[in-house]
């Protein structure tokens, strides 16, 4: 079915956005770019260290809720709710 295919494509796009952000905050800011980011400060935290031990986790929580809300909208749009 054509509408099911475009539902799936939109879903894949959302997943892609989530995983890009997921990767950037943890592997990007927390690991690969940690040294340059540590030049900056967030209170007593070095910024790279903060992303590795705090910031990435907060972002993960926000991501999962954002994805869930977007998917609920998508389900309605394509009329595939349970």
């Amino acid at each position, binding site marked *: 079915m054509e509408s099911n295919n475009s539902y799936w494509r939109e879903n894949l796009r959302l997943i892609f956005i989530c995983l890009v952000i997921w990767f950037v905050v*943890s592997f990007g800011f927390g690991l690969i770019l940690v*040294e340059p980011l540590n030049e900056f400060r967030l209170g007593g*935290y070095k910024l790279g260290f903060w992303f590795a031990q705090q910031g990435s986790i907060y972002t993960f929580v926000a991501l999962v809720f954002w994805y869930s809300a977007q*998917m609920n909208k998508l389900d309605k749009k394509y009329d595939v709710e349970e």
Partner: protein
Amino acid sequence: MDELKLYTYIAVFGSFAVYFGIAWWARASSTSDFYVAGGGITPLQNGMAIGADWMSAASFISMAGLIAFLGYGGSVFLMGWTGGYVLLATLLAPYMRKHGKFTVPEFISDRYYSKTARIVAVVCLIIASLTYIIGQMKGVGVAFSRFLEVDYGLGLGIGMMVVWVYAVLGGMKGITYTQIAQYCVLIFAYTIPAVFISLQLTGNPIPQLGLGSTLADGSGVYLLDKLDLVVTDLGFKEYTTDNMGGTLNMFAYTMSLMIGTAGLPHVIMRFFTVPSVKAARSSAGYALVFIALLYTVAPAVGAMARLNLMNTIEPQAGQHMVYEERPQWFKDWENTGLLKFEDKNGDGKVQYVADAATNEMDKVDRDIMVLANPAIANLPNWVIALVAAGGLAAALSTAAGLLLAISSSISHDLMKGVLTPNLSEKSELRASRIVMTISILISGYLGLNPPGFAAGTVALAFGLAASSIFPALMMGIFSKKMSGKAAIAGMCSGIGITMLYVFQHKGIMFIPGTSFLGGLEENWFFGISPNAFGAVGAIVNFTVAFVVCKATGDAPEHIQRLVENLRIPKGSGVAHAH
């Protein structure tokens, strides 16, 4: 009986009474109750239960201690064990729920139209889960022997009895409601001492903010800067930048833990208990909130424990603690052998430095940090008692989830699915209870006589889940054409290479002396430690599966239609057997 012991008895046995009450109230009467709690758990409840299921004795007792000594390197556990939930929520949970069956191997068998695939999945699941349980049982034994001063074996026996009562009686339904209570106990037990300590050290009651604040001693120095200074003065690596084995190793380690988290069957299974696909998505979010509560406090607990420990032993630079004047907690932990002092220069004072030749703290076991933390910070006795109950809640809740994963894979996947398909619902329910009882006995035995390889096995559990189960599930959903043959080839080669790598560096079945390349870092593949190899195993799994699929042809038409149906939430219904 002293006050501390009295409080500890009240906290521990009071919490047990609550678990029993819940178990009686939530007895299971059908296989649907037993495997998926009748499919009637709300996302919020499921989120809490996942939190307790997921946060084991390792998260509660060991993680903050690891962070305390690894510093920035400990970030791999923080990111790895939370980031996996983003993968679960977006890549697996909604579709697994849509499929609507009881177990993970059952999904694999339907999707890859193969009993062989189901058996391979059952084997992976049992190995991963059993290795995990050993750790939980050890945690129960240690908590009992340290806090109630009962024999390790007796403590273990009491723990086994408690799990038996509510897991065998209530199945998934009993386990879920008990886990909700256990989550509450463990999160209070974890955060209350942290709040006290953060308040003492920085004047800020919120540990996540306290860690980034200045010290309350009026010096205006940031806590983390002070910690960096104290540890580097003694020759240790700087706390906030100490990267465990280099960036590539940390990268692979984090990735393995994330993929492994998303592939652990006892967690995935919990998503079958909610009534809809929508609820599966949101329960992943709630689960992560509840997990993040502990995981964002843990770095504060670790750093503050390290600072308190250093300050106790060396209150001011160059001024050392006199051994005869050591505090009570120091003596208590010396008795357990987890803390050892040797007066090398004979001055009667404690020198704790990085240099092994002059260091007099022969042993500071990482696992004692969380348990000793309240005592180090001079917190009231009821807080220490709470920590004991919390550690037990963390160990018991995880053990129960793992036991259910094992018993359902045997009674539902092996017996009902492969060996004796005509099993009636009633006999299946009885069989799963018997299997669970046997699993408790086996894990209790292993907890009492931990095999020599116990320490290395948690890494193996994650490596297995990451290199076998996660790729098979993900390809099953995102690649319509992926065939059964290809998936089995992928799973076997993924596990194979991961086990080979772990064994070649840590010994075959972890027996010392049988490793053919040695545990030496210079032999590691691009410097990747054996614990971090699951990510490489997963890449091998994906690659082999795609190559085999290209060479041997796509999955049949009806399977491709099944996958298309998986991707659409419409028409999911409650999880069912057939």
